[in-house]
């Protein structure tokens, strides 16, 4: 086995080579050599960078990096065993109990806001898809509304209903996936696959009208791109007829499961005041008892004409957030039925030029995405590109809850609580 080979004959470490090269180039260019990393312990031939790897920059960091007796800083690194994307959690633990937590973001930052300043308004709608990639339709909905306000038009009624339809379908599969992720983070490997089966059916449906399975490029300023077609309607019918039963099957694995309940009830409780203070929105907020739903608070068409209630739970724990999403899922089904009944005929896109140049102004549009309040603030300067395109992603703000919530829980609960907040890193890091 290679473990017994002599070290002299080993291939030189690429990191050693790189370090030597870097030093040589620096001396050649006359730049001071790089500061040696503090506490660089040799570990398997690599320079180990300790945690923390730099002096604290703020009061909060100082508080976090001060490690008392018996505490330890543990890194749950950007590559997680459980999902949600790339995010780094710095935990300060005292033998399994978390005493402090810091969320380090930016691993998926793509500069979408800045990028959109160089793109036409229609192109922007394609750039925002991969933000919160599990609810792409919502990502497109808010900018479309904002740009329509800027341009001063409204989408035709049929387009609005189609928008609501696809957006509710998106919500259905996004919530279904959250159930799966919550179970997966706790070790149940089956619900996630049921969630993906469910998602697959819906995504096939959406692919038949938008042409894409995941990053649907479906919305346009002034409406949607294509009308519904026969294939979509037939898939919708098939799906709808068996959806309720499949929801019941999927949740039966978890909702009454003793182990699941023991791990999720009374865990990660966000109180009403805390939720409002921390800016949590969406199902997380409603699970803490605040009846705020953007679809009711500022109805964007056609939600003003649809009948639905704002569901809330009272407990505010992980289990409540789970139940909240299931209830919203069922409510979305109900909404889809109403939309199908009430859909008017007409064009699906208003007449807009290829490159729109709205008058200078500002517009703000907020929608209810599966993760919360997703809003877009767009400023136009009269040109073909937006002057400022700002997206407020709900997952980012929901993550602020973590440092407040986690102390006192075990490391294993970190996964459960984070999964219940349902962040998607694409949205968090923009």
């Amino acid at each position, binding site marked *: *086995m*290679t*473990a017994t080979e002599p070290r002299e004959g080993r291939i030189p470490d690429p990191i050693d080579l790189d370090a030597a090269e870097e030093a040589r180039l620096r001396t050649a260019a006359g730049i001071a050599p790089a500061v040696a990393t503090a506490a660089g312990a*040799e*570990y*398997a*031939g690599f320079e180990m960078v300790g945690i923390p790897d730099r002096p604290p920059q703020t009061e909060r960091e100082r508080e976090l990096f001060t490690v008392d007796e018996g505490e*330890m800083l*543990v890194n*749950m690194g950007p590559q997680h*065993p*459980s999902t949600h994307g790339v995010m780094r959690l710095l935990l300060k633990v005292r033998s*399994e109990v978390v005493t402090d937590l810091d969320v380090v973001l930016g691993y998926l930052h793509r500069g979408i806001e800045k990028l959109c300043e160089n793109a036409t308004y229609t192109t922007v709608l394609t750039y925002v898809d991969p933000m919160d990639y599990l609810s792409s339709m919502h990502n497109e909905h808010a900018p479309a509304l904002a740009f329509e306000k800027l341009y001063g038009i409204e989408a035709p009624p049929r387009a609005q209903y189609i928008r609501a339809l696809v957006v509710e379908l998106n919500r259905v599969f996004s919530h279904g996936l959250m159930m799966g992720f919550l*179970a997966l*983070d*706790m*070790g*149940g*490997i*089956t619900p996630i*696959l*049921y969630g993906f*089966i469910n998602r697959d059916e819906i995504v096939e449906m959406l692919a038949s009208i938008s042409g894409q399975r995941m990053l649907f490029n479906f919305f346009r300023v002034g409406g949607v791109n294509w009308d519904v077609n026969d294939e979509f309607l037939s898939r919708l019918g098939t799906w709808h007829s068996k959806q309720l039963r499949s929801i019941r099957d999927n949740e039966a*694995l*978890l909702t009454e*499961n003793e*182990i*699941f309940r*023991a*791990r999720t009830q009374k865990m990660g409780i966000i109180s009403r005041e805390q939720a409002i203070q921390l800016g949590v929105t969406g199902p997380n907020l409603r699970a803490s008892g605040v009846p705020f739903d953007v679809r009711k608070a500022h109805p964007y068409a056609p939600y003003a004409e649809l009948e639905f209630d704002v569901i809330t739970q009272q407990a505010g724990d992980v289990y409540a957030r789970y139940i909240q999403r299931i209830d919203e899922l069922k409510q979305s089904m109900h909404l889809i039925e109403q939309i199908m009944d009430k859909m008017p005929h007409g064009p699906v896109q208003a007449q807009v030029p290829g490159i729109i140049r709205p008058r200078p102004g500002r517009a703000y549009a907020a929608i209810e995405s599966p993760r919360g309040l997703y809003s877009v603030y767009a400023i136009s300067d009269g040109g073909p590109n937006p002057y400022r395109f700002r997206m407020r992603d709900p997952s980012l703000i929901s993550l602020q809850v973590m440092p407040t919530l986690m102390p006192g829980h*075990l*490391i*294993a*609960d970190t*996964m459960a609580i984070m999964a219940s907040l349902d962040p998607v890193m694409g949205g968090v890091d923009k």
Partner: protein
Amino acid sequence: MDLDLLLGIGRFILSTTLILLLTIPTAFIVIQMELKIIASMNLRIGPNRVGPMGAFQSTIHGFKVLAKEDQIPDKADRATFTIAPWMVFMAAAMSMLVIPFAPGAIAADFNIGIVYFFAIIGLSVVGLLVAGWASYNKYSLLGGLRSAAQMVSYEIPLTLSVVGAVVLAGTLNFTDLIHWQRDHGWLVLWQFVGWGIFYIASLAEINRTPFDMVEADSEIVAGPFTEYSGMRFGFFFFAEYVALFIMSAIMVSLFFGGWLAPWPFPAELGGFLGTIYGIFWFFLKTYFFIFVAIWMRATLPRVRVDQLMGMAWKVLLPLALVNLFVTAIAVVALNL
């Protein structure tokens, strides 16, 4: 006398060799079962390329781990790092010696077979602890400590739950225990609570879901096994599945009649046909319980560490003691 001794030694060597050779295919079969069964429960297909319906997938996995690079962390304690997987595998292999496959088909028919079994199965704890310590990785260490705590605390309800059965049957010998079950009915009917405790504790003992905090969802995946690769990891991996087989086999022997058929006519036969008959029933029952364990893995989420330990000490242990108490009183009072 000499001939007997020689025959005895020869038989012993032959049977132990057979048993040791049997562990690997058993592991392969159980892993393959798990892959396919969990796949069907997840509404997917599972491996279907290697062999007919993917039947050789786990075998190829076994050969693959042989071909992987064997890494040892620089600062790891080389000797203990190497020994740890052997300890775990040895515990599993040695405990296979006392499994009663069929009448007369036990490698080592000790008079204290049950005690031997529980003693040996505890050795795997040492292996995991050593693995966690020797890896020079604080996550491995924590995972190893966690696993040691879990396994040690579940050993107590495990052994206590069996004592009731032993008291009823009056013997620690596996063969005699099964003969008692042939005459008096399966022990699960007499010791239902004992069986329940044994089942839960055995799953926790071998780190199966829902009690697999050790190997998944640790701070980092795989807990004490994080730094292991190649054949060493293969040892751990196979030892886990062999342990699953062994625990199911022991449970079947202790509570479900071992090699006895479910009906009493005839419960067992003699001679070569009897061996075949016994082996058939034994494996059927054992693989049924392996299936149930795999089913539980596919369905249930994990129990949290503190809830797990709480359950061991606050629920299972008192229950096992009560069970023992009641059994003992019943035996004395009813002169069983």
